[in-house]
């Protein structure tokens, strides 16, 4: 990974003693390449590397016997800071609390919504899944099957306007003593104005406690466009990174966090409904760096 590559850069230093501007430049190039290969967005890589460079020309590196390792540590620490920091728990207020799962087609919203419900049920809460995807064939059925598997009720109103379904679900939750509503929405493109408006309408009507963008861990450069658009339109409160049980480096995590400032609250680690874990920024940093 990055450690080996930086070792090569500084190998020729053995005996030379002092690190030059050029050595740091070569090291920063290796950092940039490693991050781009890990699918971190180009602009995010530029900003991130310049931050690292500031520290790389500081005493901790220039006086170190193992400058390569020192830089790797700086990169790792800076990345962990960037992706961590703020609380990664759900912030749920009034009852029924409302969580919305949004994102692009196929990202893993429906599965993640059910996983969230499963987690909350195990924590002693009374979640309600809401089927607001009226477009995808058998989407409602998919959510119902998942709800059944984990013993969580699913509120569905068939082919009705998603906004009406969402509003009705609040009434249903209140009269059926459910204290958390999890709304599964249809996958959509961030450039589809009509469908983005649909989400804005649901947000205005329900004033959700959490609006979570579900992002596929294998997403490439486009992660920045997606995250930014959803955040500008809706004001996200968090991200869920899915399919992290795959072998993608997951640079999209850094991109999405960097451009929105939103914490990654959960990661999907499999297709089963117990495969939702809390996000660990340091582990993610190690993964991205390879």
């Amino acid at each position, binding site marked *: 990974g990055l450690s080996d590559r930086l070792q090569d850069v500084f190998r020729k230093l053995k005996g030379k003693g002092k690190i030059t501007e050029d050595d740091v430049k070569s090291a920063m190039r290796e950092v940039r390449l490693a991050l781009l290969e890990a*699918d971190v967005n180009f602009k995010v890589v530029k900003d991130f590397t310049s931050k690292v460079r500031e520290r790389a020309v500081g005493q901790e590196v220039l006086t170190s016997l193992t400058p390569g390792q020192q830089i790797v540590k700086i990169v790792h620490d800076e990345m962990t800071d960037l992706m961590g920091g703020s609380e990664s728990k759900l912030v749920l207020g009034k009852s029924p609390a409302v969580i919305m799962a949004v994102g692009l087609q196929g990202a893993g919203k429906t599965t993640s919504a059910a996983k969230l419900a499963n987690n909350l049920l195990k924590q002693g809460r009374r979640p309600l899944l809401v089927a607001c995807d009226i477009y995808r064939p058998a989407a409602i059925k998919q959510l119902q099957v998942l709800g059944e598997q984990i013993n969580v009720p699913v509120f569905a109103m068939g082919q009705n306007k998603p906004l009406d379904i969402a509003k009705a679900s609040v009434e249903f939750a209140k009269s059926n003593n459910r204290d958390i509503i999890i709304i599964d929405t249809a996958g959509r493109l961030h450039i589809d104005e009509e469908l983005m408006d649909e989400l804005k309408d649901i947000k205005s009507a329900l004033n959700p406690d959490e609006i979570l963008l579900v992002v596929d861990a*294998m997403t490439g450069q486009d992660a920045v466009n997606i995250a930014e658009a959803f955040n500008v339109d809706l004001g996200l409160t968090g991200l869920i990174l899915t399919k992290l*049980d795959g072998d993608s480096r997951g*640079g999209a995590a850094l991109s999405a966090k960097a451009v929105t400032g939103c914490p990654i609250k959960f990661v999907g680690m499999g297709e089963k409904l117990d495969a939702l874990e809390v996000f660990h920024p340091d582990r993610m940093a190690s993964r991205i760096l390879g």
Partner: protein
Amino acid sequence: IKSNRKLDDDFWEELEEILIYADVGVNTSLNLVSNIQKKAKKQKLYDSSEVMDLIKEEVTNLFNNYDNSINLTSSPTIILVVGVNGAGKTTSIAKMAHRYKKENKKVILAAGDTFRAAAIDQLQVWASRVGVELIKHQEGSDPGAVVFDAISAAKARKADILIIDTAGRLQNKTNLMKEIGKVRNIIERELPGAPHEVLLVVDATTGQNAISQARIFKEATSVSGIILTKLDGTAKGGIVLAVAEELEIPVKLIGIGEGMEDLRDFSPTDFIEALFG
């Protein structure tokens, strides 16, 4: 990139940026640009629009080395559709079924995803909408059994085309890749020469992981072509360049939306135009 620009460092850097932003990948992008730089020098090109034409030609030639068409000459033609979770396999199969039905072909579908919640229901809705028959078993049954049945049905009913849907799977899941390899073996055994096409469905928003997907699926089932989906978004799908170059797998079809009509043949020129557009 505006035309009539000087071929200075800024120009070459900007070219690299465009490619990287399009998910072409950093190594492929740098190699491509350095090759173009050499050629531009050799051909004494000084105008940026000439360089853009050169790069478009270079990429188009790469893709035109391969067979971009779907082979429908066998009867029945068996098309196996594979790929990672959520890429767009089931929807792409509906689109293909619709296209071939419009061409008056007799199409049968097989519900090979017996695992995911409501996967069979989803394909059944599509089959009904398109007006083609779907061979399916119970949820949780053996995918191999469904495939076996579907091939018998295709032969018996003299279908022109059988398209097989499979469960999404991440390529690093060894047991799941073994399973799909077994499915391919069943197809080979039941109809010599089949599967005639094994199409890997790749989401255009995918980054460098698409190369690992292509490599491992190629090892498991051999892949004859890619269906690149969700090109109606803002992602350019540039990873297919490296996949074509390193693994010699062509893109055959593209998905440009969620409806049954939203399928197009892959056009290298359109693709490269959109990439630089």
